[in-house]
């Protein structure tokens, strides 16, 4: 496959970010649109759609309208169950901004700057998810949204749009500082440092997509072991070896760089197979 998939993906990511900004501006003008909200919570022609992390938080903090939350997370959960962690690389507005930062990282690298490649334990994000949900349940208030980049990005967009021109526009929020810190981390510490190691939402999507039937697969007879896919993976996986499955966010970077048609995104055949992610 060529780079076409990557351009398609970037187009989708950019369109999502643009749509969030546009919908927020329309809402600030009082225009009624059939789709309202953002990637955290949206209302699509009356049907609520919610980030599974928002739903999980709402459920564990024992709020009202449990059935409505379950309805709202239904579509995201089904899509993730089928395709895996696609939200992260195709929709997440913070993920898109991280990728933009990653481009800057590559540019600086070509200029002679040596960004780090710090590795952490991937289990951090599952612990953060569990800890956050337990704390949300204990304090009976949703907390993980304060540490979830896409929720912070849409909140800051919302703040920027609605406070434009007023005195509140200048207030620096904790969320904005946290995002700034994460972009710095992406720039100097590691590609997708937050997504790989710490994101509680990514952890939830990973868990939901563990048994997905459609994933990146390796056709071993085609593979020439050129290993071009290894440095291409922004999640630091090895598509030639890994079968961990949970971590891949289906950005298809490996599929796009593979010169031998060995990697593809398709339905599993059932037998346990070496390679793919």
């Amino acid at each position, binding site marked *: 496959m060529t780079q076409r998939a990557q351009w398609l993906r970037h187009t989708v990511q950019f369109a999502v970010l643009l749509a969030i900004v546009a919908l927020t501006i329309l809402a600030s003008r009082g225009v009624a649109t059939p789709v309202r909200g953002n990637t955290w919570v949206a*209302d699509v022609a009356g049907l609520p759609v919610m980030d599974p992390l928002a739903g999980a*938080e*709402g459920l564990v903090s024992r*709020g009202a309208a449990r059935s409505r939350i379950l309805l709202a997370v239904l579509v995201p959960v089904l899509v993730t169950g089928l395709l895996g962690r696609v939200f992260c690389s195709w929709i997440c507005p913070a993920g898109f901004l991280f990728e933009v930062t990653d481009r800057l990282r590559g540019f600086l690298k070509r200029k002679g700057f040596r960004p780090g490649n710090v590795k952490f334990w991937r289990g951090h994000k599952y612990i953060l998810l569990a800890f956050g949900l337990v704390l949300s349940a204990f304090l009976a208030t949703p907390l993980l949204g*304060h540490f979830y980049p896409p929720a912070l990005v849409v909140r800051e967009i919302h703040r920027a749009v609605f406070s434009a021109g007023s005195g*509140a526009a200048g207030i620096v929020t*904790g969320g904005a500082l*946290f995002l700034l810190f994460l972009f710095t*981390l992406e720039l100097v510490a590691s590609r997708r440092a937050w997504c790989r190691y710490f994101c509680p939402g990514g952890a939830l999507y990973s868990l939901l997509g563990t048994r997905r039937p459609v994933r990146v697969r390796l056709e071993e007879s085609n593979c020439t072991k050129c290993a071009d896919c290894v440095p291409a993976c922004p999640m630091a996986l090895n598509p030639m070896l890994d079968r961990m499955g949970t971590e891949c966010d289906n950005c298809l970077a490996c599929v796009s760089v593979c010169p031998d048609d060995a990697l593809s995104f398709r339905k599993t055949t059932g037998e346990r197979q070496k390679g793919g992610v």
Partner: protein
Amino acid sequence: MDRRDFLEQLTKGAVSGAVACSALGVLAWQMGRNPAPHLLITEPGTLRPPGALPEPDFLASCIRCTACHDSCMSRAIQLAGPRDPAQTGTPFILPTETACNLCLACTTVCPTGALQPITDIKTVAMGTAVIDPRTCVAINQTGVCGACHTVCPLKNSAITLGLHNAPVIHEDHCVGCGLCEEACIVRGTKAIRVFSDRETA
């Protein structure tokens, strides 16, 4: 362990520590004036939008999605930032600045039921108005007013006027929209203020 390994471990430790500390710092800052032990307290004079569940249930249900804020026709609903008197991201109303006009649009858009749908404005229970007789110009007879009565959507049941237009609140009928507080002509602290009578802890 050689020097290189040691430095690498040190860097990892430092970054892990920085992540943990910044996460805790952000938590502390986001809580702002409402650190964890007082998580459920909003400041007096701050109202929740109409239809809000009792405060603990409200905080458990609200997922900070901004839908109520975006639907608010009178622009009364504000979203709490780090310096505001409610938990970050939650909607609140300061009737001194802009009061709720009881359009009740917010109660229909809430995705989690933190704001319960309401159709009859008489069943709203955001708070109750309280008059300070020392500063109310109609009561202390330093002027002629009646503004609170004029704007009250439930006038003659929630507010009636007595001698010299002195307003009288009837708590059974006052829904706490705060329009009277917004309209009150007294400068600084208004003479009529709405206080939430919802359970706060």
